[in-house]
């Protein structure tokens, strides 16, 4: 029994079957990659996991509890954090504030009317936030407005915002999309380090096979909304069905 269990999930958008009977089991403390050609339903699947979309049928359980029908903030409070394909950060706020907000969410829950105490009086929150910025090597940028960061830094900041909450499951939607090779390698190292040093289960959607094969312990291949194979990286490379899915698309 994995930490995350997806069973028989279906999702239609009008006439398009985005997800058809998807089954997925992510083992605790593993790195699980979900790959597949464009339009395979990878992001739709992720959206169903965090409460952005509600599947038409099927079940999604996290640590034995259903996540379906819950609001995004409730799912996050259960221990699932998500890094988006395009970095979702608080552009108008400084880097350190960006990281402090998830700390407050972790400490105080979904709502706390603390309108009187000053932010700068919250020493524990600030310490945690400073520490995570050191971990992702952004401590010298902490007073910069987040909107003026480079794209790579925005991604690292978003990852820091997720990590500072010490989630049990981290969902990454193409964490290296649009990155230069050096940045990609840095991200791989960062994710490896996170996985080794903390007990975080990761589910990664990725196009870059270099990233997938450097990190993943299990790989699920999605095609046209359904899982084709679930295998270890060694076995997936020469798998005939996988070749067919990718090459078949290439021939079109």
């Amino acid at each position, binding site marked *: 029994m994995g930490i995350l269990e997806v069973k028989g999930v279906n999702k239609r958008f009008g006439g398009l079957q985005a997800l058809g009977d998807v089954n997925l089991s992510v083992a605790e403390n593993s790195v699980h990659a979900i790959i597949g050609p464009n339009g395979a339903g990878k992001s739709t699947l992720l959206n169903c996991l965090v409460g952005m979309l509600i599947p038409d049928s099927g079940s999604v359980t996290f640590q034995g509890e259903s996540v379906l029908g819950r609001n*995004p903030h409730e799912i996050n409070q259960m221990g699932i954090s998500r890094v988006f394909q395009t970095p979702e950060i608080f552009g108008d706020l400084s880097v350190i504030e960006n990281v402090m907000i998830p700390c407050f969410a972790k400490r105080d829950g979904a709502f706390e009317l603390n309108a009187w105490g000053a*932010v700068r009086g919250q020493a524990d929150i600030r310490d945690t936030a400073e520490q995570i910025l050191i971990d992702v090597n952004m401590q010298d940028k902490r007073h910069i407005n987040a909107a003026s960061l480079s794209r790579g830094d925005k991604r690292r900041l978003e990852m820091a915002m997720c990590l500072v909450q010490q989630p049990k499951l981290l969902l990454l939607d193409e964490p290296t999309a649009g990155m230069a090779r050096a940045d990609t390698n840095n991200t791989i190292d960062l994710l490896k380090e996170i996985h080794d040093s903390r007990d975080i289960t990761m589910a990664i959607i990725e196009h870059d096979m270099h990233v997938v094969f450097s990190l993943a312990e299990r790989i699920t291949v999605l095609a046209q909304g359904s899982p084709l194979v679930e295998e270890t990286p060694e076995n997936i490379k020469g798998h005939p069905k996988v070749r067919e899915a990718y090459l078949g698309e290439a021939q079109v």
Partner: protein
Amino acid sequence: MFGLDKKDTGLLLIVAALVAFAPILLNPFPENSALAQFNAGYPDLMQRFVIFGIFAIGFNILFGLTGYLSFGHAAFLGVGSYAGVWMLKLLTINVIPAIIMSTLVAGLFSILIGYISLRRSGIYFSILTLAFAQMSFALAASVLTPITGGETGLQTGLNDPRIFPEFLGGGATSGGNIPAPELFGLEMRASYELSVGGWLWTFNAGYYVCAIIMLVAFYVAIRIFRSPFGMMLRAVKSNQRRLNYTGLNTKPYMLACFVISGMYAGLAGGLMVSMDPLAGAERMQWTASGEVVLMTILGGVGTLIGPVLGAGMIKYFENIFSKINDNLLHQWFAFMPDGLEDFMVAVIHPFIGKGWHLTLGLLFMLVVIFLPGGLVEGGQRIGGLFKRKKKNTTTDTQSTAAN
């Protein structure tokens, strides 16, 4: 000091000093000079400065922090006013229950409107609040006449019951006159006039009551801006989606913010009727809601001091520019040859008197185009110029010293 950092304490003290000495500062011209027209240091106008300052500070907590543009804030001001007058009529002529009650009633009313309006964001939120405010205005002017006095408005009268006539020093009908609102025996309209040289300064009791409450409101606003709650509200403005996926429920944050903002408006309404115990439905009209939007944008959205400056600016224009008439212009340009004099008067005529809206509109356009950050940004730019100049001179002296 007061749990604020150095900069905010400084700001609070500056505002406190300005407010305390406003009767002197706003009367820079001697009483009999031609420019006495521009003096703003009379009680009625000064009261309006600080009351609308409170209104705008509260509006800015909502609009400045979260970016939710409410177009119905005047409804809370109106509801607060009615609640205040009813307290003056039923309970006592002392203003304290009126001020407290108007804040509370406006708070309750904003829970209702906020709960419904906050289901939408952006333009739909604005339209919903506008609809509610117009509905309140229409109801107050017609159906609810027994409560609101309809189009004539609600005011204190001779036959009001006032169940606590002697409560807290509040008087019953005194000597056949309608009693004036007061605070423990001190009438709000009581003034002390001080004449120094050609200047005449009026220190009004009501103004100082409003001023003290405004300073408290300003202080509370600073605390909110600097608190974790304030940070969450700025995060709502920046990226509401991320906030949801970070485990925070934006709904109660928004509702709390909306209610706080509505209570500020109710407080302003309560103070208005405490100074002049008359509340009319037109106070809730959409133009009144629009005015507070203008004040906030003119002063500087999301800044602490901006809304107060904006409120002062608009009320100054409304009261001073609207009073300038053609006769006065002829006096001013009397030194010119007749033809030129008439020409100048004709040129300026559209901008004064009833045309003050035109002047204000032009000013508003200039500010929005050239100073998107409002008057505060203007101040910062001027401050920046001086700083740069200073820096240049210091580097100059350093380089001379090096030579």
